[in-house]
């Protein structure tokens, strides 16, 4: 009992320190403390919950997680001197983007916003700054509307300790052709990271956002608890692409959630390679009529990686539509698990939902589990799902070898081809190459 009290006291101190360092407004500090309170009273998942059957919660109960180093970071004291290679590649191409926000560890280092875009009131800022500059928006949406601490122990933990993040607001009626890029890079100096991205797409706006996470080769294990919340207003249209290259992170918990209003659409693209143990929760709440969502993603596990995906397509109102395609491959001793739920509420008549999970098993010791779920309480609907598991086609491999390709290269070509339709959705070659390089690196392991 005493140790628990001690820990709760320590956590509270840490939260206060983070809040002070970031010079947070009162409402935000209150929100942190509330999240901490919920964290303290929420029990850990037991492993019996359907969502937690495949990944041991133990990985996330790390002793280290509560105290981010940056709690003791003083502004201006640690000046970041080196721009990491992956990020500098993006910055060199800044003109391709409507805006770029680069953050390394807990330090907001670079921000670029195109002149025209700034003129058209596009807002891109690091989250602590945005909380001070635009309280009217951030207060309304931040961990209040899409992600809430009540959703789970790890969401509550994040709500208390987050210390780095991005805020994007796409103004009403504006369309941005060039994509927005949010890049996080972690050096391993910090062992607990809580990046948070909040996107508010105002009615009838349109944009594409890329979010990348990269890491240096880290020696110490790093725990990453990252969350993205998207609020799409009436008629808004948003493409959100997440490239997860944090391959040296030890444990990664990702919560990607989106709430869709009337006639809006959100298209998620996931490129997931990250973490030794990774648990991803992706949720689409189609809250109002006419909303549509499309999710397309790839994952590739190698070595002893454990990748676990939990997706929810929640149809709450009629005439909503959602599609999901997740293509995965596992090699080495890696293991993947997919649980995808399509839920159709009794109110959601005339909906159309689809879900497909393909798994490619590339080695004898790899394992892939799939659990696609339909929960349907309306009748005037169309709903289908499918899941497959198989290995590379021998005849394709044989053909390529007869053309003189070594086996390894032939394999790589076929795997790249398997992923290509989804990788091609990325807007430029630098990003595509970053993904293909990662695929090549993993297949060579």
């Amino acid at each position, binding site marked *: 009992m005493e140790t628990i009290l001690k820990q709760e006291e320590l956590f509270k101190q840490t939260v206060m320190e983070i809040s002070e360092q970031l010079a947070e407004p009162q409402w935000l500090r209150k929100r942190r403390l509330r999240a901490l309170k919920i964290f303290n009273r929420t029990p850990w998942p037991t492993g019996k919950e359907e969502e937690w059957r495949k990944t041991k919660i133990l990985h996330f109960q790390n002793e280290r997680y509560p105290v981010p180093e940056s709690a003791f970071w003083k502004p201006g004291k640690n000046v970041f001197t080196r721009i990491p290679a992956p990020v500098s590649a993006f910055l060199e191409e800044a003109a391709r983007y409507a805006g770029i926000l680069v953050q390394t560890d807990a330090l907001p280092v670079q921000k670029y916003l195109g002149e025209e875009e700034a003129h058209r009131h596009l807002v891109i800022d690091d989250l602590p700054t945005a909380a001070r500059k635009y309280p009217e928006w951030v207060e309304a949406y931040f961990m209040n509307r899409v992600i809430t601490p009540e959703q789970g122990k790890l969401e509550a933990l994040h709500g208390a300790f987050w210390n780095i993040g991005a805020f994007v607001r796409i103004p009403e009626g504006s369309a941005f052709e060039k994509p927005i890029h949010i890049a996080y890079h972690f050096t391993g100096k910090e062992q607990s990271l809580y990046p948070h991205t909040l996107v508010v797409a105002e009615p009838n706006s349109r944009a594409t956002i890329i979010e990348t996470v990269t890491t240096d080769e880290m020696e110490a294990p790093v725990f990453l608890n990252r969350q993205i919340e998207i609020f799409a207003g009436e008629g808004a249209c948003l493409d959100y692409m997440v490239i997860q290259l944090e391959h040296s992170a030890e444990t990664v918990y990702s919560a990607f959630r989106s709430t869709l209003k009337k006639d809006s659409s959100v298209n998620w693209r996931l490129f997931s390679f990250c973490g030794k143990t990774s648990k991803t929760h992706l949720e689409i709440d189609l809250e109002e009529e006419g909303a549509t969502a499309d999710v397309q993603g790839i994952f590739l596990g190698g070595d002893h990686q454990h990748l676990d995906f939990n997706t929810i397509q929640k149809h709450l109102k009629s005439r909503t539509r959602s599609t999901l395609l997740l293509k995965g491959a596992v090699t080495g001793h890696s293991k993947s698990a997919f649980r995808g739920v399509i839920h159709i509420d009794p109110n959601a008549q005339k909906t159309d939902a689809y879900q497909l999970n393909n798994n490619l098993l590339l*080695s004898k010791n790899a394992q892939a*589990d799939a659990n696609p*779920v339909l929960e349907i309480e309306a*009748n005037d609907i169309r709903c289908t799902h499918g*899941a497959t598991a198989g290995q590379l086609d021998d005849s394709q491999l044989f053909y390529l070898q007869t053309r003189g390709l070594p086996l390894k290269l032939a394999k790589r070509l076929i795997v790249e081809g398997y992923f290509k339709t989804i990788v091609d959705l990325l807007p430029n070659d630098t990003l595509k190459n970053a993904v293909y390089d990662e695929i090549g690196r993993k297949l060579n392991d």
Partner: protein
Amino acid sequence: MAANEVPKIGLDKYKYDFKNPENYYFRVQKGLSREVVQTISEMKNEPDWMRQIRLRALEIYNKKPIPKWGGNLDDIDFDDIYYYIKPAEKMGKSWDDIPRDIRETFDKLGIPEAEQKYLSGVGAQYESEAVYHSLRENLKKQGVIFLDMDSGLKQYPDLVREYFGTVVPTGDNKFSAMNTAVWSGGSFVYIPEGVHVDIPLQAYFRINARNMGQFERSLIIAEPGSYLHYIEGCTAPIYSEDSLHSGVIEIIVKKGARIRYTTIQNWAPNVYNLVTQRAVVYEDAVMEWVDGNIGSKLTMKYPAVFLKGRGARGEILSMSYAGKGQHQDAGAKAVHLAPDTSSNIISKSISSNGGRASYRGLVKVSKNADRVKSNTRCDALILDDISRSDTYPYMEVDNATARISHEATVSKIGDEQLFYLQSRGLTENEAMALIVRGFVESIVKELPMEYAVELNRLIELQMDGSIG
């Protein structure tokens, strides 16, 4: 179809709702206890090893929690159930030997008639005990054994001891433990090497008493190269109190043998039907489950194949209809433990009048099972806006050479289809029944003729008046 029409289809349509007075020869007190288990074992004059198995099972049962997944089991009052009722002093050799009301029950169910026409053997169970068992002479001569389980234990104790509990271990789940503690009746079937039983055997299970728990235990052993089609039917009268049926069926299909097990479950809508049925399938053998779930309040039943020998094959066809107040949580389980094994699962479910139909399935491929093939296909029809359909398939693949696929669709009856049929002069109700019949046709055609007719009729009954 009017959106919120109160469904007219009623439980009164259930044609098996006739009851006899509860005349029994012996009955234990309500509830499950060590005493009850001891009494059952004493009544049966069992060998000591079986009594020990029962008592150990009771301990396991008491330790296991009630499953939280699947259907809602919270409303069962396990203390308000009779775990053993012996209806008559002894089993009849002919239908004339058994008490009149019981005989009349089976007459109404058409069993003696079917026995003459389509079956090579019949077992009839009433409450906890078999009241009648027969097998054609020519099969007896070939060494086929078809007995109720209690007689099987008496006459072939070594065979029973060798196989009992090897396919479904006592502690497999809470209800297999319960069954092992209080089992009574069920079938014991042994098919010698190379014998083909061309005409099906049938067992019929009837509950008559209120608050009854029926726990039949069946064991089927198919020696190499043999063949059997076994059919199981079940009904009960309707009471306002709940009854419980919790059977365990263990099947061993040896090298090159083939067994088809067909169930047409039509329990009354106050019966909880929690059954564990599983087959171990050896080299080049084939197991086929044909599972029709029409009745019961809640069914939780997932026929399983454990494919243990190279080239073994499992087929599971599952059909369920969830009407008013019903939850059919049915499905299939295929566990691939050897190379070159294959499985095929087809599920068709229909939900109407507020019913809920769920498919729950597992396809598992173990590490050393190379070149496994498995296909699952689940189709669901929802007939109105107050019903529900779920699909919960699990795939666990631990071998890279496996080819596994799963596909599912959920839909309503197409307006164009209905419109077309109505334009040809069918009423809306007739059109719907026709479409539903077409929907389940691929499974119905696997049934013996007389059952196919019966199933189609049952579906029509279930649907009758469902359109406002």
